[in-house]
Structure formats: C-alpha cells, structure tokens
C-alpha cells in the first residue's frame, strides 16, 4: 500500500464520523419531533370524539359525558384580559425607560439584574407571592383580578425583553433626525420609536400571553377553586344588577386547572374530557404562537431601514 491509499483511507475514516454524526443528529431531533407527534395524535384520538358544541357551552359536571369547559374558557379569556391590560403598558413603559432614558448607573444595573433573574424564577414562586401579597395582604381574594395580576408579573420580563429588542433594532439616525427637528425625548419615543417597534412589541405580548394562558401552578397556588359551575357576573345585569367591575372579584376557573382536575380523577371517562380540553388549550397556545411568528414575518418584511 502506498502513501496515497493510506491517506485516502484516513480521510474516509474521518468522513465516516461526519456521516454518523449527521444520522445521530437527525435521530436526536426526531425524538423531540416524534414526542410532539405522539402527544398530538394521542390527544386527538382521545379528545376529538368529545369535542362538540355542548362541550363548549356546558359547565363541569360530576357526570363525565355531560361535563364541558364553559366556565374554563370564559375564565381563561377574562384572566388574559386582565393580564394584558396590566402587563402591556407596564412592560412597554419599563422597556422604553431602560432603552431610551436610563443612564448608566447603579439603579439601572439593579433593574437589569432583577429582570434577568425574574425570568428564571419558577412560576410557582409567583403563586406564593400572589398568595401572600394579593390574596392576604391586599385582600383581593381568589379572584380573576388576583390571577390576572399574578400572570402579568410573570410575563413582564418577556414583554420588556422583546420590546427592548424591538427598540434597539431601530437605527440611531431615526432618533437623530427627530431631535434635529426639535422634538423632545418623549416626542421621539411617542411619534417615532413606538410606532416603528410595534411589530416587535406585539410579538412579545402575544408570546407572553400564550405562556400565561397555559400556566397552571401559580393559579393553583393562589387557591383557585377547581369546580366552578357558574360564570362571572356580566356588568349591569342580574338581580341585584352587577357593577361594571364585579367580574374582577368573582371566583373563576381556567382551562389548565380544569384539565388538571379531570386528569387527576381515576375515572378514565374524565381523561377523555381532559384530552379534549387539552386539545382546545394547545390550539389556543399554538395558534397564538403561530400568529406571533406570522406577524413578525409579515411586518418585518415591510420595514427597510
């Protein structure tokens, strides 16, 4: 054997490792993707037979076949409403401060470190915070308001981080041009930076809310009931007429809690309900995620600096 052949053999040997790793990589990826497929198929097979109009319009019941998710999906939407109303202005304002106003000082550093650390705090800790603070110290009770505010605190770091990224991606000359025309700082932010960063902010808000809608642990921790067979009061209806904000203080249940409740029952017919409700919940979260990805893609295409 001459030297060329030896070299060829050596190269071939090393190239084989490239191929082996390519296969291993695909296998590793397929573990994740197959799990996702198994999850969906399992949920669909068990759940889809239960999905009917009645499932969406009935209250939970002791009889599995008659139980529905009316109070759960209404609760989820109301809690998300409170979360969005609290988290969106706070998150945007915080991000604008950190990105446009903050000077390099100790306070800024403390705020930055806090936001990074809060993103790593387990969600159940937020539940304990809410239990101690909102439920017992402020006396808000185990209400929609408490749950909404808790989830708002939970997603605040997500909203702040994505808003900051969006603000940072606006080129400096936009700000300089506005200042050169005599705009004040707030005018620059309000007239230029916020409108231009809207796609990024919107994406962050949707991703944050899709995380919040699936959160179970903090809401269980504040002591939300799991069996709710009524809806929060609609403003100005009922006897005596409910006030405009009475629904904020109403007991409630949300989709994940309903699923938890049905999953932890030993009776398999309730597991079917859990699968059907999971199907709806996954549809909600993934739908929101898809919307965020689409928005980012659509709106980014139109911006050319």
């Amino acid at each position: 054997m001459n030297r060329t052949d030896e070299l060829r053999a050596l190269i071939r040997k090393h190239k084989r490792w490239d191929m082996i790793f390519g296969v291993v990589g695909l296998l590793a990826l397929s573990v994740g993707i197959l799990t996702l497929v198994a999850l969906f198929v399992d949920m669909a097979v068990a759940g889809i037979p239960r999905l009917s109009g009645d499932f969406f319009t009935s209250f939970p019941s002791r009889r599995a076949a008659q139980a529905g998710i009316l109070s759960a999906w209404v609760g989820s939407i109301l809690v998300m409403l409170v979360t969005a109303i609290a988290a969106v202005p706070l998150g945007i304002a915080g991000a604008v401060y950190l990105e446009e106003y903050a000077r390099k000082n100790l306070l800024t550093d403390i705020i930055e470190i806090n936001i990074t650390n809060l993103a790593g705090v387990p969600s159940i800790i937020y539940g304990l915070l809410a239990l101690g603070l909102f439920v017992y110290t402020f006396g808000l009770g185990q209400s929609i308001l408490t749950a909404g505010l808790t989830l708002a605190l939970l997603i605040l770091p997500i909203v702040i981080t994505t808003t900051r990224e969006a603000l940072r991606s606006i080129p400096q000359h936009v700000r300089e041009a506005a200042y050169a025309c005599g705009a004040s700082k707030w005018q620059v932010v309000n007239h230029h930076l916020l409108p231009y960063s809207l796609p990024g902010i919107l994406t962050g808000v949707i991703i944050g809310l899709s995380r919040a809608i699936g959160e179970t642990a903090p809401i269980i921790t504040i002591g939300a009931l799991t069996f709710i067979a009524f809806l929060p009061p609609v403003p100005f209806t009922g006897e005596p007429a409910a006030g405009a904000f009475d629904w904020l203080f109403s007991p409630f249940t949300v989709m994940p809690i309903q699923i938890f409740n049905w999953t932890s029952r030993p009776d398999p017919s309730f597991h079917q309900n859990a699968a059907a409700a999971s199907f709806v919940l996954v549809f909600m979260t993934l739908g929101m995620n898809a919307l965020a990805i689409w928005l980012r893609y659509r709106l980014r295409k139109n911006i050319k600096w």
Partner: protein
Amino acid sequence: MRMSQTTTATDATMSSVPMDGSAKLAEYARTKAQRKRRERAIEMVLLLAACVSVFTTAGIVYILVKESLVFFAEVPLWTFLTDTQWTPLFSDAHFGIMVLMAGTVSSSLVALSIAIPLGTIIAIYLSEFAGHKTREILKPILELLSGVPTIIYGYFALLFVTPLLQKIYPDLPGFNVLSAGIVMGIMIIPYVSSLSEDAMRAVPMSLREGSYAMGATRFQTAVNVVVPAAFSGIASAYILGISRAVGETMILAVAAGMQPNLSLNPLEPAATITSYIVQVALGDLPHGSVGYQTIFAAGLSLLVLTLCFNLLGHWLRRRFREVY
C-alpha cells in the same frame, strides 16, 4: 396673494399684542420650562414602571422570608434541614426538606440526562451540519415543544408514557418519577438546544475556516473548535435547563404521585418541593396554620436553589467567556 395675507396676519398679531424682544424671550423660557417639566414627569412615570421588577423581587423575598420566619419559629432550621421525614399534615408532624429535595433532585437528574445530551447534539447538528433550509424548518418545530402548556405534558406523562414504560417494565407503579422526568427532559430540549445553537453560531467563521484549512472534518471542527469556543454560552444553556427542571411543577404534580419519599430511585413515586406546594394549595388549609406556613418555607428553599444555579451560570459565563 397668499404671501400678503400672511404678512397682514402677522402684522395684526404684532399690533394687537405689542411684544418686544425680552417679553418674547420670557414667553420662550416659560414654554421651555413647561416642556421640561412635562418631560421630567414622563421620565418619572417610566422609571416607576421599570422599577416594578425590583418591587416584584422585593415582594417575593419579603413574603417568603416573612412567612418562613413564622414557620422557623416553630420548627428549628437544623431540624428542617436534617429530618428524614416529611409528614407536615400528620399529628406527629415532621418537616425534613431533604425528602422533598430528593424528589426534586431525582426528577431533575432524569430530565437532564435526556435534555442535555439530546439538546447538545441537536444544537451541534443544527449549527454545523444542517443546511439553511433544514434549520429554518426544524428549529421552529422543535421550539413548539417548549410552547405546549406543562399541564398537557403532565397528562401525556401519566396517560401515555407511563403505560408505555409499563409494557417494558411491568412492575412500574402508575405514578413514578421516571416518566415525569423523561417528559420533562423532552420539554427542556429546546431551551438547551436553542441557546447552545445561538452560542455556536456566534463563533466567528474564521475559526472554522482555520480548522478546515488544517484538514479537519466537520465533526472534528465542531467538537474541537466550535464547542470549546462557545462553551460559556452552552454552559448558560445547561444552567437554564437545570433551573427549568428544578422549578417544573405540573408534570410532577400530575405524574409523579405527590408522595414524600426519601429516595433517589426514579422508579418510585415521589413528591418534589413544587408538587408539595400544589398539594397543599389544593386542600383548603386555614391561613396561619403550620401546614400553610410550610409552603412558604418550601418556596424559599426552591428560590434559594434556583438562585444558586443562576449565580453559578453568571460565574461560568464570566469564567469561560471567549473574546474575539
């Protein structure tokens, strides 16, 4: 025509409000001061919003420490750390956090032994081996894994993975740490792989080109050049994965059985710190009882644990940062 109109209009204002230079300057100064005040007020409001994160942290620490102090007034810290039983709701109450810690550790170990190898391999594959198109398609699909609500993973672990594992190992109990841990691990894969991949892609092309120029193959370049260069980013991805595993609640509450068990054996049911908090919150414990106070002590332990990992992450990032 227009010009003359404008001129007359200006003349009219000039004549109706006689203004010399100094009055005009004063007027300017007033508007400027007003504008400055408004700007200050807006800045203060924005600062207040940014400080909400500081208030949140302060609130978390305050609530956990305040309620835990009540608990530790009844149960000495040393007993809490060394007792080997966790029976807070029995009349003969024992509070040994080790028992819950064992559940947290064994479930996290199972999860990480899946998430870290698979996550790293996927990151290397996506960053160094896959073509542009493959990556653009596969990465978002993989990231869906972290978008699925954890309660649904709990359902999946209990009603799909456990029966599957029981076919292989018939003695497996219906609630066990193994299936919960496996599902948790798969859920964590995208956290590990996305961050690691970002770190690897940030490694400058020149390093790879240098390696190829020396005759290295793709695999050799990936393992010997790219991974060491991106190590600080990969390490923080691991740390993120660990804190996810430690703080995960619903999968364990649903599939691992919530039975306090001082053992690292994943084939048995176990309670973790997080699932214990859920268990107590589900029952109606009166505010102020010792049972109610235990969840805050457990929460404080969990917070300290995740804080340790965060600090470790900061340290690793700084220690192994490569500057190009």
